């Protein structure tokens, strides 16, 4: 067996450029499968655990109508938010809902001197978001009622945003420093530390990190309106969730003149929604990957057919010295599998590199799992064998006398 591997390496090396071109399809196929899996797996486990971290009692109101059957209607998600401070107050008036709070998304980039916090999620919030999102201030303090009343120029940073704006500085020493946001100078009052190690094998940050929080009153000033983008609340008992959703729904419909232009999601809804979206993206890219693997496989078959013809004489010689049909079959099957496996390996290394870059540059978590590694190896060997069978059979069946006469 090992002998055949050596033989194959020898013959693949004899035609390096052709070998590389043949591998391209497999390289691209395996690269896309593994990168996709790495991102999908990373995002899924990170976002999944974030959503689970909200607790099963969480209820979230979002603008736009999401139909569980028809999925998301993108048009309803775009444009202005439909949620108002009045909705927030209505929800606070409902019994058995605790820590009701909202966020307002601010379009702005926080900066300190020439350092900017690119990719930060800047939100206006109230008193309870800290508990709701399970993001606790480690140094300094969270927003107070006074901050809200005063439209205070204060800001809370999480550890990612802090590193972007004050790289390398001690969290404590950052407190009291100034951060610029949309022509305003804000004082850092609190730092949210990293919660725990992420479970991605390459580390990395989670999608809800890189968060910057300011008083919601201040965010209204900046945005020029008092619209809310999300309202969060928690039922005091998980058994109350369904009942409370109905109550919130009727209250909000009343506020919105009978129009149901919002959606109420539970933790389970969010997980399902998220998994649905991920599944759609995964199958789309998975389809592309499958096509490129098939194209790659056909490329391998084509080149192996050429190789078998070119090496007719060799096949004759090997048979003359005692090689069986099975020996020849195995030799060419191993060659096509190895061709494909090396392609798969290159694809895998590329996707490993790219997923690290994606993680570091864009903060999208990635996770290359053992399953992904086995899948890459399996796919590429499988493609090599499946598309190698026809050429290898052709080689094995060659008549030795005619093969020896071939020039």
């Amino acid at each position: 067996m090992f002998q055949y591997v050596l033989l194959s390496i020898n013959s693949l090396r004899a035609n390096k450029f052709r070998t590389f071109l043949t591998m391209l399809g497999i390289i691209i196929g395996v690269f896309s499968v593994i990168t996709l899996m790495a991102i999908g797996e990373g995002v899924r486990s990170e976002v999944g655990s974030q959503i689970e971290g909200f607790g099963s009692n969480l209820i979230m109101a979002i603008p736009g109508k999401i139909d569980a059957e028809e999925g998301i209607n993108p048009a309803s998600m775009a444009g202005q938010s439909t949620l108002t401070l009045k909705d927030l107050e209505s929800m606070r008036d409902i019994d058995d809902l605790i820590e009701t709070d909202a966020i307002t998304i601010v379009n702005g980039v926080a900066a300190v001197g020439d350092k900017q916090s690119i990719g930060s999620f800047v939100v206006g919030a109230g008193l309870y978001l800290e508990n709701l999102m399970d993001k606790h201030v480690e140094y300094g303090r969270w927003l107070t009622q006074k901050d809200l009343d005063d439209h205070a120029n204060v800001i809370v940073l999480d550890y990612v945003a802090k590193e972007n704006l004050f790289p390398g500085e001690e969290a404590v020493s950052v407190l009291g420093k100034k951060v610029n946001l949309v022509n305003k100078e804000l004082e850092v009052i609190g730092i949210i530390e990293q919660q725990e190690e992420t479970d991605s094998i390459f580390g990395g940050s989670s999608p809800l990190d890189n968060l910057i929080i300011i008083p919601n009153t201040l965010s209204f000033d900046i945005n020029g309106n008092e619209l809310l983008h999300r309202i969060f609340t928690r039922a005091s008992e998980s058994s109350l969730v369904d009942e409370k959703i109905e109550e919130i729904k009727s209250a909000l419909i009343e506020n919105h003149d009978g129009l149901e232009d919002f959606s109420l999601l539970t933790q389970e809804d969010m997980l399902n929604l998220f998994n649905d979206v991920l599944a759609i993206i995964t199958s789309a890219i998975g389809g592309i990957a499958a096509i490129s693997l098939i194209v790659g496989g056909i490329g391998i078959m084509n080149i192996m057919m050429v190789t078998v013809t070119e090496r007719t004489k060799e096949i004759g010689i090997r048979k003359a010295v005692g090689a069986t049909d099975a020996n020849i079959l195995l030799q060419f099957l191993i060659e096509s599998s190895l061709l494909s496996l090396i392609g798969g390996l290159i694809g895998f290394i590329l996707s490993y590199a790219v997923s690290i870059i994606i993680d570091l540059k864009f903060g999208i978590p990635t996770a290359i799992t053992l399953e992904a590694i086995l899948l890459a190896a399996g796919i590429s060997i499988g493609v090599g064998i499946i598309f190698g069978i026809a050429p290898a059979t052709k080689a094995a069946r060659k008549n030795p006398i005619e093969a020896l006469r071939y020039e």
Partner: protein
Amino acid sequence: MHQIELRNVNRVFNKNTDNTFQALKGINMIVEPGDFISIMGPSGSGKSTLMNIIGMLDVADSGSYWLKEVDITKTEKSELPMMRRQEIGFVFQTFNLLNRLSVYENVRMPLIYSKKKYGKRSKVDELIKMVNLGHRRNYLPVNLSGGEKQRVAIARALVNDPRIIVADEPTGNLDTKSGSEIMKSLVDLNKEGRTIILVTHDPQIDKYAKRHFKMVDGILTED
């Protein structure tokens, strides 16, 4: 028991077509261990066809071919490579070396297919020295002369220690000097007790043999 016995062997090409052609007509031949046989005859008379049948690369259409008490014409096709490997060493007019492999790798190549003998490196080197190519061990065939190439082929034919060497015009592509070197090697092998079956056009080469056959139009006769 003879080493080889051919009884009324026929080989017909393109059977059931317009250009059907009988290349071998009722061949009878007995070979004893240690024979040195030469077969002469005009081009197209069927010499190579006979060599291929003896070497089990081809199968007779009728008649029987006994090799060491086994009737090859009745043997499973899948078992022929194993028989060939154990009993026959081929030497060809065109050397038939693998160009991408070194001298050493070419000589070792048949061992890949014979599990029990695999790994006998020393044997490979011994054979390379025996054909006086120790200094060319890692050369590729392109860098060898014709005579050297044929000596590699002889070493390769011997690596499984076969009792019979089938040589189809082994000196056909060589000058007289290289040709007589090759013949000396074959004579030595014959002295070791190996059977040599040789095809040649050259009367000078024919002289090395102990038994002389003529092939004319597919009919074999012994002088």
